[in-house]
């Protein structure tokens, strides 16, 4: 008898959890909700908005949403890699600010293309520092990146003296990035799509994304498989910082200036989007597509409610409720035997 033939009757002999595994025995509705629940909520809200306002579902308004979510989307996609690797990056908002300031300061000296490259290099260096701190220096991701965040905030204030850094109106190429549009479609919205494709390929088709996932899933198994764990954790921080750097450049371009605290507000939105995104398609772990949909949801709600003049307090309450409900039901649907981790 081959092993294949013996396998079938061996399964299902015992009711214990590990024995019964292999098949999902839960109710079909539960299974459906686990995969599609969050997307269903997003669609329902979108349908409700489009009934309430004929303007909501127009190309121009969708473009508005994409345009406004650009910065948050880039931060969140970068953060997805760090969370997938099993760490946290709280410096992302400040890296955006630093990148935009470095870029705006360098443009008069080096010209826009070189300034962009310098800003991206600086961002990646910061990511490298984050990664080295949490690996070789053994500092937790939360603490290490908070430290870097404070360092950067101080640096940002020093560089700007607390005032905005303006970008000249003759920088046509640079301003095209964030302000150009063709008909209803903003250049920035197209770039958002391009960066999403790049992030998606990194996460799903290249070894770097694959290893980042493996390391985050079980670092010990990765180590024993001969995978250089530290290298991929550091890579995730560099990727995260690179996406922040790009976001910073577009932020400076959009407003033709760099603000001393321009990116600070995006940090918590990004975390909300990554964890909301983890529930999408029932993956239970961060993934780039989920993150993008998470950001889209947050900005769609904000856009729709602004149209009806709903107060921002109501908007926050709604967003908080959806985040808790999505993550909470997902946690309950994926019941583990014993839950004793509270981070």
């Amino acid at each position, binding site marked *: 008898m081959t*092993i294949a033939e013996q396998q079938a009757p061996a399964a299902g002999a015992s009711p214990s959890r590990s024995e019964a595994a292999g098949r999902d025995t839960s109710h079909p509705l539960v299974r459906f909700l686990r995969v599609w629940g969050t997307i269903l909520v997003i669609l329902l809200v979108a349908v409700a908005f489009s009934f309430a306002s004929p303007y909501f579902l127009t190309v121009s308004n969708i473009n508005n949403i994409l345009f406004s979510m650009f910065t948050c989307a880039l931060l969140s996609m970068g953060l997805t890699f760090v969370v997938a690797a099993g760490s946290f990056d709280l410096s992302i908002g400040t890296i955006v600010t630093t990148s935009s300031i470095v870029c705006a300061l360098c443009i008069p000296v080096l010209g826009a293309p070189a300034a962009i490259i310098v800003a991206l290099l600086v961002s990646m260096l910061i990511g490298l520092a984050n990664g080295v701190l949490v690996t070789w220096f053994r500092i937790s991701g939360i603490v290490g990146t908070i430290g870097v965040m404070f360092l950067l905030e101080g640096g940002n204030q020093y560089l700007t003296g607390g005032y905005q850094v303006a970008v000249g109106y003759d920088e046509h190429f640079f301003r095209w990035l964030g302000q150009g549009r063709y008909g209803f479609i903003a250049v920035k919205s197209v770039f958002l799509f391009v960066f999403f494709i790049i992030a998606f390929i990194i996460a799903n088709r290249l070894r770097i994304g694959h290893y980042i996932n493996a390391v985050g899933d*079980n670092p010990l198994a990765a180590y024993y*498989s001969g995978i250089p764990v530290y290298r991929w954790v550091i890579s995730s921080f560099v990727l995260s910082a690179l996406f922040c750097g790009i976001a910073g450049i577009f932020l400076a371009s959009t407003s033709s200036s760099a603000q001393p605290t321009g990116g600070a507000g995006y940090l918590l939105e990004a975390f909300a989007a990554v964890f909301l995104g983890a529930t999408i398609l029932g993956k239970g772990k961060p993934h780039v597509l989920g993150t993008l949909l998470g950001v889209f949801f947050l900005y769609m709600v904000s856009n729709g409610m602004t149209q009806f003049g709903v107060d921002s307090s109501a908007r926050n309450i709604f967003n908080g409720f959806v985040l808790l409900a999505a993550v909470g039901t997902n946690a309950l649907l994926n019941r583990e035997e014993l839950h004793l981790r509270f981070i």
Partner: protein
Amino acid sequence: MDARPIIEIRDLRKDFSGVHVLKGIDMSFDRGEIHGLLGENGAGKSTLIKILTCVYTASSGEIRIEGAPFHGHSPKAANDAGVGAVYQDAELAWNMTVAENLLLGSERRWIDRRAMEREARDILSRIGLDIDPAARASALTAAQMQMLTLATLFHRKFKVIILDEPTARLSGRESELLFALIRRFKAEGLTIVYISHRLNEVKLLCDRATILRDGRVVATLARGEIDEAAVTRLMVNRSASDLEITNPGFARPEVALEVKALGTAKLSPTSFRVHRGEILGITGPIGGGMEQIEKALSGLIAYHGEIFAEGRPVRIDSPSDALDIGVALIPEDRRKQALFPNLTMAENVSLPILDRLSRFGMVSTADILASGRRVIERLQVYPAAPGIKMRYFSGGNQQKAVIGKWLSRDQKIYIFSEPTSGVDVGAIRQIYEIMLEMARDGAAIILMSTSFNELLSLSERIMVVHSGRVAVERPRAGFDRDSLLAATLASEVA
């Protein structure tokens, strides 16, 4: 095929702060053989394996792999040399698929899931495993997880795979699948080192078996020579058989704990009683069902059947239920499951009685230190410093602290699981004396152990649990080392 042994071990010695665990091991593993490794607990099997996989470094001696001297200092070095071990808890990336786990570390530049699943399917079918390459690792059965781990080592071209009690968590049928896989590996020229307490498995599977006793190789038997009588004779250490401690019998008439038809997913209904003052020894192969009793009584797994504490029917659905009815578990892995390494010794032992130490909701540091000092005095904990962090105490003193923690709460029923594993030799005797003293004071004690010395020294009755049920239960006087070993090794199946 190369006729040289794949691994040669010469005069390998290991001591832990003066205690000699390996006293000169000479042995070899041949290419393409299944080599059994037998020995009582403490004979040095696991130390030997840990040296081979570079978890420990040897104190002296030589290891040659394919003729070349081998000096590894990390598990990764052993892996690179082609030596790997599969422990009972397989290490897999749980959220990734079978294919992704199997090919982890050898992916192509461009990740193509379909191609990976095809490649994985080829590898799996080559070694005769029917696992869906697209399934998530966390959705596999225990047996499939273990076999996937084996397949992973196979795919990485390991030359020597060490299996430590591989059938402990498997059913009879699943074990058969594992044996088929092991034979397939042998046919591919791999060397398997097979550690097990189940003699019939070793008889069935192994080409040779080496028996360790007291840190030395006593014999290497060829396939035909492996039988119960010979193995028992070789495994039992005669010099240690004159026991220094015996239990004179403190059992009182009152029953402290009675279990009627207690069963779990892996334990057939079992009934037994423990009297006050009695020490009931329970032994058997790992995974044979003994740990199911321990887990059920301490509220860690679901069970059916009835439990009576001092005659009252009770349910134990969580560790806090167990605490309330007076059951205290002293687990084997005390560092992880019983102690708080960064709290002080006094804080550790006073944790279960904080409610008694507090006045108006405030806990006094002086009272905590005082309770720490009481435990130190009663159990002779060294160093006698209640304010030192628990992690700085030795294994034996940590064990005393776990006991002390429950003693201060005055629990009625104590479940000891391998109470002397990882305890230095000097402290073992002290722990035995503490346990006997507790029995004399009226505590009911259940001793789960795989050390026969321990069972015979301490128990008044001994129960052997095998294949998910009680195989033998007799008073201590009905056993000697040979019959106890025979009862543990024997298995009714096959």
